[in-house]
């Protein structure tokens, strides 16, 4: 609905666009925030409208692999619990699957590796702009969630990680459209080898229709929730909470 205040706010945004120095102030206004939130919603809706639910990200050939797969973000978690797990080559690692599920589960790395696996050569697109192609092997998240049996109230899947940036732990979340997508896997292998620590060992998320920061590394716990409000600062992920990155990173 067009209100006078909304119109004045919109005109304010337009006028601010003419003066770059004014843009930083415009960005801090509630009108700009509403505009950003609405267009963000539009982006999700439009993407989902033109995509088949299970539309696959392109899969590449061995010839397309990046000679060096760049590691980014945390490359060696400092948390003592993680370091002792890594020191024992993750023999004591357990992935918890809990929250709004009928049968909470706890799986060792060996158990995860014995589950049906999917291998896919996909392109990793960092929000910064670079891309790297790697060959990922892991267990489809859909199978894991099916075995734990999601409760009807579950709407989001949250990935709790072992690494932290200062005070808060890394975490990420996706909705069920992406969680149940055939290419969404918890990967334990990269380019035919065990997943390196720099790339998220022992287990990282691959959610191929979204940008890199959604692909949580060092995943310790998979939690099904009805709402993201109670987790972290409530925006659905570490970068979303701390820097206002968009929760939906399909673009």
């Amino acid at each position, binding site marked *: 609905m067009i209100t006078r205040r909304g119109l004045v706010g919109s005109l304010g945004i337009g006028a601010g666009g003419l003066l*770059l120095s004014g843009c930083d102030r415009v*960005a801090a206004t509630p009108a700009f925030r509403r505009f950003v939130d609405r267009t963000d919603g539009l982006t999700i809706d439009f993407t989902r409208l033109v995509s088949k639910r299970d539309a696959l990200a392109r899969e*590449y050939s061995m010839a397309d692999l990046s000679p*060096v797969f*760049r590691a980014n973000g945390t490359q060696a978690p400092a948390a003592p619990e993680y370091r002792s797990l890594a020191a024992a080559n993750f023999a004591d690692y357990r992935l918890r699957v809990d929250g709004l599920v009928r049968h909470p589960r706890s799986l060792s790395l060996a158990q995860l590796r014995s589950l049906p696996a999917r291998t896919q050569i996909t392109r990793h697109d960092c929000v910064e702009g670079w*891309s790297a*192609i790697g060959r990922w092997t892991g267990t489809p998240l859909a199978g894991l969630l099916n075995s734990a049996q999601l409760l009807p109230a579950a709407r989001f899947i949250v990935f709790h990680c072992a690494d932290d940036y200062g005070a808060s732990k890394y975490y990420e979340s996706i909705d069920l459209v992406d969680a149940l997508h055939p290419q969404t896997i918890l990967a334990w292998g990269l380019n035919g080898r065990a997943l390196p620590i720099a790339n998220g060992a022992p287990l990282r998320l691959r959610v191929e229709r*979204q940008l890199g920061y959604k692909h949580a590394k060092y995943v310790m716990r998979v939690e099904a929730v009805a709402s993201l409000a109670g987790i972290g600062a409530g925006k659905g992920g570490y970068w979303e909470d701390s820097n206002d990155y*968009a929760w939906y990173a399909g673009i």
Partner: protein
Amino acid sequence: MMATVAHPVGHEPVTPLRSLPHRVYRHRLPTRLWHWSNVVALLVMLTSGLMIFNAHPRLYWGDHGANADRAWLEIGPTPGGAHLVLFGSVDVPTGGVLGRWKDANGVEQTRAFPYWATIPSGYSLAAARRWHLSVAWIFATLTFGYLLLSAANRHIRRDLLPTRGELKPSYLWQDVKDHLRLRFHPTDGTAHYNILQKLTYGLVLFVLLPGIVLTGLTMSPAFNAAWPWMLDLFGGRQSARSLHFIFATGLVGFILIHVLLVILAGPINEIRSMLTGWFHVHRVEEGAA
């Protein structure tokens, strides 16, 4: 009192008034609205885009491209200064402007594009993406809306498409010479676009603007899954990112030349016509005393 002859661009005046200056209706309302909203939208897109580039100031061809891969363009700080490196070999020192510069507080920064050219002025990839991806909705709607409308109301066919005669080398050469002599307007009392103008507007409207929207979408992993043909069209995601930057550079070049020519061609008449639609012309009398 000025005589007024209202007629669409491309038609002879209905009642030409000899030796009197008169005015023609040159820009219809959709063109004028589009022009000025585009000024704002494009400015936001370009400046927020430069900030996004700052997050990874390297460009590649193909599907993948990261720090270990060969970049065809790179803007980076070096201990002594800063450089723009093309194709790994052409090295342009850019210290003070690109790669290493002082911000508004006099603090040295080592990002590619300086604070006065970016939204926001201080480094923030997240904030720049908010600007860029939100205003992109307005920008893409304006671009494709105007293209559709201009096809429907015959603006493209009547005013923008070159005629066969205009594309003759001799005619093109004549227009180049006219431009060098700063003669931009027809002398027959009409306000046709000249052929260099038509070709330039065509490049902007049919190549650069739709191209920049489509290459932008091709960088989206979600759209890649929905429309994988876009990856093939532009030769991979990193090629699309490079083309996005090249198209943006083309648009910046267009804006600079456009503003320069407005100034040379008579800024008051030109800007007034884009505000009111009415363009003042002088008809050159042939053989008249």
